[in-house]
């Protein structure tokens, strides 16, 4: 690369943060697509784990090139979403949330107890094949797609479902199909995020995809606001950057981090970006 040394140094220093911003942005979008359709589905961390583990195995065991691994990484999460979609989509609200968290815990137990997946030691030595530009390209494409879809009649149907699913169904919206559709889109986005992060940090472990990340991903979307796909991405960026920006405060870092989040929730209940997309006239 022909970057000046100080810039190369700067990028190297913050490479992990830059990667995390892109990956967490994708995860926030995975959360956004289900929330936008009124589904409190918290399986994103589980889907991310499936994408990360399946792609890591493809790289480590079969030594496939990353260009082949990345598209394949959506297969496992989307397949899993199809499998669990039928039974779980009968649920809504907190029941759906509990069921999807449960699925994540089941997968975590699988990672822990299957030797090929490394057990508690995880998988290490994953090639660092995911370039930063690719992560941001995928994030930009996903944002653009969701923006276009959100402005179309599909976005209108999703918003109707979010406000009142029964009324939307009465108006002719095929609620079941939409619910499955957003679940699959969410699984694909989270799977990509998992594959990208696994191939940017070289090491994955079962506890990276458990309950705590599931809730963190939800907080990205809630902090940013779900009026448009930009809100969740902004929320993810704020929550990812805050701990690093506050590094100078050493011991009180986590306290300040918490205070900022509490203030944001108290004074900006509709999210940092409380702005709704305009729909294209039907």
């Amino acid at each position, binding site marked *: 690369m022909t970057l000046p040394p100080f810039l190369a140094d700067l990028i190297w220093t913050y490479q992990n943060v830059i990667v995390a911003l892109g990956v967490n942005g994708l995860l926030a979008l995975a959360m956004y697509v289900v929330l936008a359709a009124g589904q409190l589905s918290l399986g994103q961390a589980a889907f991310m784990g499936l994408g990360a583990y399946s792609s890591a195995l493809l790289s480590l065991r079969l030594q496939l090139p990353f260009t082949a691994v990345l598209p394949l990484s959506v297969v496992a999460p989307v397949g899993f979403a199809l499998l669990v979609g039928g039974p779980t989509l009968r649920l809504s609200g907190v029941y759906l949330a509990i069921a999807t968290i449960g699925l994540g815990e089941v997968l975590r137990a699988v990672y822990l107890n299957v030797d090929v997946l490394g*057990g*508690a030691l995880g998988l290490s030595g994953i090639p660092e094949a995911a370039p930063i530009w690719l992560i941001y390209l995928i994030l930009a494409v996903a944002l653009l797609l969701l923006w276009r879809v959100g402005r179309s009649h599909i976005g209108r149907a999703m918003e109707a479902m979010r406000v009142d699913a029964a009324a939307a169904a009465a108006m002719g919206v095929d609620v079941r199909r939409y619910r499955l559709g957003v679940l699959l889109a969410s699984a694909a986005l989270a799977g990509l995020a998992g594959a990208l992060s696994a191939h940017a940090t070289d090491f994955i472990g079962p506890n990276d995809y458990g309950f705590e990340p599931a809730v963190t991903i939800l907080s990205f979307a809630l902090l940013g606001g779900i009026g448009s796909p930009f809100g969740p991405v902004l929320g993810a960026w704020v929550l990812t950057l805050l701990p690093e920006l506050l*590094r100078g405060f050493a011991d009180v870092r986590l306290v300040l981090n918490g205070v900022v989040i509490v203030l944001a929730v108290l004074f900006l209940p509709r999210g940092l970006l409380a702005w709704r997309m305009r729909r294209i006239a039907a």
Partner: protein
Amino acid sequence: MRFLVMLAACLVLSTAAGAAEPVPVGLVAILSGPNAAYGTAIRAGAELALAEIDAGGGPKIALTVEDSGGTKDGAINAARKLIGRDHVAAIIGPTLSNEMFAMGPVANGRGVPTIGTSTTAAGITDIGPFIFRTALPEADVIPVTMARAVARGVKTIALLYASDDAFSKSGFDTMRAAAEQAGLKILTVESFASKDTDFSAQLTKIKALQPDAVGISALVEPVSGVLLQTRQLGFGPQTLFIGGNGANSPRLGQIAGAAADGLIVGSPWFVAKPDPLNQAFVAAFHARTGHDPDQFAAQAYDTMKILDEAIARAGSASPGAIRDALLRTDHHGVMGPFRFTDHRDPASAEGVVVLEMHGGAFRVAE
């Protein structure tokens, strides 16, 4: 935008500092979150050593401490900040083996020698030629404990471990290998999750098999829970309990009390080790912090001294020269004589003492 300005400002500051005399060294430790006790002890040990180094003549060290929060992302960010911004010549830490597996490749890729003081899992120094450790790997400590068990007439053993934690799993693998090596018959292997509070199913099965000994690889809280429950289920003093490195904590006695009596554990260091160097360290640490040091503080104290000697031998602040000088380490510290193997692990386990719980506190086992 403000972020970029801040970054630029820090960059300017760090280049200005680079011209000064002291050698910049980084410390990555867990200073926040549930495992902060380990990192706080490590920092206190390293800072005591640094104060003594500053009082003596040797090369001066400018220490920058970074918090990893106990997560692999936190450790990577801390290492990247130390290397990219503070331009450290060497790093001490991180605290957990998991953090080292994540952060090690980053430091190794940049050619910055990194010394784990508490990373005991297998495979740490396989990360690369710049990764060292002064922590005795469990593979060195547990065989000593097993040999002691055999000397006490143990012939059969049951193993119990936490399967959801890298440290406990790695310790269990080592324990099983050591038991086989020692010629013990393994009657059963049982596992649990670190947050479990009920172990009666596993313990009832183990009790029915009547093993001479039970080996437990887990962090101190679950080990305490297991021991408390064994007494309720009627395990008597005829069963010898053997702990992994996780059981080597004074907290075991505080939580489990008399239920932990009789448990043996191998330790690279012991607070009451009688040699004068160790006694002076314990006294100085107590005067500085108001409490006794633990194993983590002792390891960090020795490591800082080892690194300082290496910097003196290297005669420069170049990470490559410091790495080569580290390989020629010949140090006598509070843990005993210390050298690195060619694979950058501690060369000998002769400093290992086998401890036994008695009345809620450790003492040297007979």
